[in-house]
């Protein structure tokens, strides 16, 4: 039976070894910061100005890291795909289009399967960007841009298993995604657009007709209705607005609390006016089949909280309040 002393010693070794690995990998990442140069800026510009996709290729551990970077780029608004170099040579190259940006990931820069792909990618009109630890490698020489992800040493004591180098690659990928988030002005709502799993996401991914108010719940008055009635309806429904429609149910306008205040400032006898005299004509509208996300965009762009819903010829079908999409107490313009 082993003594407690022996056990303690072994635990310390384990912890020390782990600390050592983390330190080596951290050093590797920190040194990356010093190596960042204009190539990284050019890469960010290239992706930012391109309407095409970012395609990432790599073999082994680099390939696994590449898949993670693809996922991060996609969820932050940069269209991205993973292309396995071997599968690419056997038909998957068909997914590559002219103008795509190919990020080739290889620490050594001498991965045959990856390098064999380069002439074909060039022929297809792709920009090739190497993410490699060897600036003088075949991959680097055949690329338009080279991002240096070299590390001084691997954390593996044998120097064989990719450890620090893949961590550096991962960090560089995250750096790229985050810089693009800032450059594109990608905000919380954009993020939610690509993450429809949450409750807000579910509401955003539904159609307007699924969440709008319909039938008797829609605050609506006729064109010639007196303002007394319009104000009563605004109070009853509690969304701060009433829709104004003509005899054939075509939307003519909308009266909001703001409209009443504005008219009141000029004409104290607002209650004697007809709805037609107070309403804002040609309000912004959406159709019932519009995605809720697009309706939200309209509301944000025009700084409105109530959106009339009309059919293809402009007849009133419902009404949507900002709270119906974002939930009460949660809404903030621009999602910040």
């Amino acid at each position, binding site marked *: 039976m082993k003594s407690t002393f022996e056990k303690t010693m072994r635990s310390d070794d384990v912890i020390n070894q782990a600390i050592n690995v983390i330190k080596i990998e951290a050093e590797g990442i920190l040194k990356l910061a010093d190596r960042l140069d204009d190539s990284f800026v050019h890469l960010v510009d290239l992706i930012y100005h391109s309407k095409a996709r970012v395609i990432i290729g790599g073999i082994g551990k680099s390939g696994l890291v590449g898949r993670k970077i693809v996922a991060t780029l996609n969820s932050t608004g940069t269209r991205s795909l993973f292309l396995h170099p071997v599968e690419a040579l056997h038909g998957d190259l068909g997914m590559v289009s002219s103008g795509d940006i190919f990020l080739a990931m290889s620490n050594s820069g001498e991965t045959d399967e990856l390098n064999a792909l380069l002439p074909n990618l060039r022929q297809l009109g792709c920009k090739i960007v190497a993410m490699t630890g060897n600036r003088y490698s075949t991959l680097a020489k055949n690329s338009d841009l080279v991002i240096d992800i070299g590390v001084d040493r691997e954390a593996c004591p044998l120097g064989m298993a990719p450890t620090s180098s893949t961590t550096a690659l991962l960090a560089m990928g995250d750096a790229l995604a985050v810089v693009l988030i800032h450059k594109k002005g990608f905000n919380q709502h954009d993020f939610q657009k690509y993450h429809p799993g949450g409750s807000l996401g579910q509401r955003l991914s539904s159609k307007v007709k699924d969440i709008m108010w319909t039938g008797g719940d829609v605050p609506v008055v006729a064109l010639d209705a007196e303002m007394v009635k319009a104000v009563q309806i605004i109070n009853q429904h509690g969304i701060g607005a009433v829709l104004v429609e003509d*005899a*054939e*149910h*075509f939307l003519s306008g909308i009266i909001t609390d703001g409209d009443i205040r504005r008219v009141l400032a000029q004409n104290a006898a607002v209650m004697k006016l007809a709805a037609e005299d107070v309403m804002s004509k*040609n309000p912004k509208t959406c159709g*019932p*089949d519009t995605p809720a996300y697009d309706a939200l965009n309209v509301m944000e762009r025009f700084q409105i909280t109530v959106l009339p819903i009309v*059919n*293809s*010829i*402009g*007849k009133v*079908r419902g009404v949507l309040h900002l709270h119906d999409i974002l939930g009460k107490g949660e809404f903030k313009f621009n999602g910040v």
Partner: protein
Amino acid sequence: MESEARPPEGLICPLVTPLDNDRKLDLRSFKRLWNYVERWVDAIVIGDPLWGEGLFLPQDLRLALIEFAIELIRGRRPLMICITCSSFKGTVLFREQAESIINQMNYKGQLYWVDFPLFYHSNRGLPQVYETMLSKSEIPLILGNNAELIRMKKRPGKHKNIRTRVLKKIAHNASVKGIIYAGDLKRALNYHMAVRFREHFVFYDGDENVFIKNPAKGGVMAGGANVFPQKWSDVTQMSLDLPPRQNAFEPARSAIWEDSRMLQRFYRLYTLLPAVAIKKILHQVGIIAYDECVWPLASRQQRDLDHTWQIDLNRLLAAYDLL
């Protein structure tokens, strides 16, 4: 290089002519129709032979329509006035009477004549006709070429389209600003080549179904815009990449496809009897008060309209929740 103002581009709506039960101009419905389409259209045509029943309306009613339209529109959109009559003399006279009214009203908005010359004249001597007619007018002209329309009048064997070389000669007249063209693609290409010396000569699609498939650069004259002005505006602006929907086609591709599909389904419903069918739809959805027409209908057509067609229309209106 010509130094002329560009005619409007985008969605041109040939308004139907609302009539009451006594076949007089229904001004209230016309105003309502104008209010309904105004926001979405880039120009309107009044008195069009197919959509506005121009060829079958009495002259005094057509002149009253011009007067009322000018008062109503007040320069907010370019106005295109169709002057085609069943005879050459009639067309010349109508153009003179219309221009006299316009001059009296001292109208400052953009105006264009629209004319389908082959309805009353052959290709021979057409350039000279326009030289004479337009030398007396300050209002520029948009040509119309629609073989289906001409087929209503001319017997087989006669030319139903403006010949390419004739168009080339007509286009030397700077007052002719463009053409509303309905016909095959090959002729359209020949027309384009014939007038390439005119930088701002505009081609509008005269067949809206063709525009949905292959949009002409200048836009479309879509009768369907009487009923669906917003949808037609969306499709036109995005197809032509016009403001305010520039660069909007890609993200809205699926929505535009759905809208176009709907517009095509309705197009099939009204294409054979444009004015009659559009008026019935507008009346049924409550935009105009009467569906009265002056378009001469055969008894078989009337029977179809009352039964089969009406069933199809009701089905389509219900499918798109338009009633």
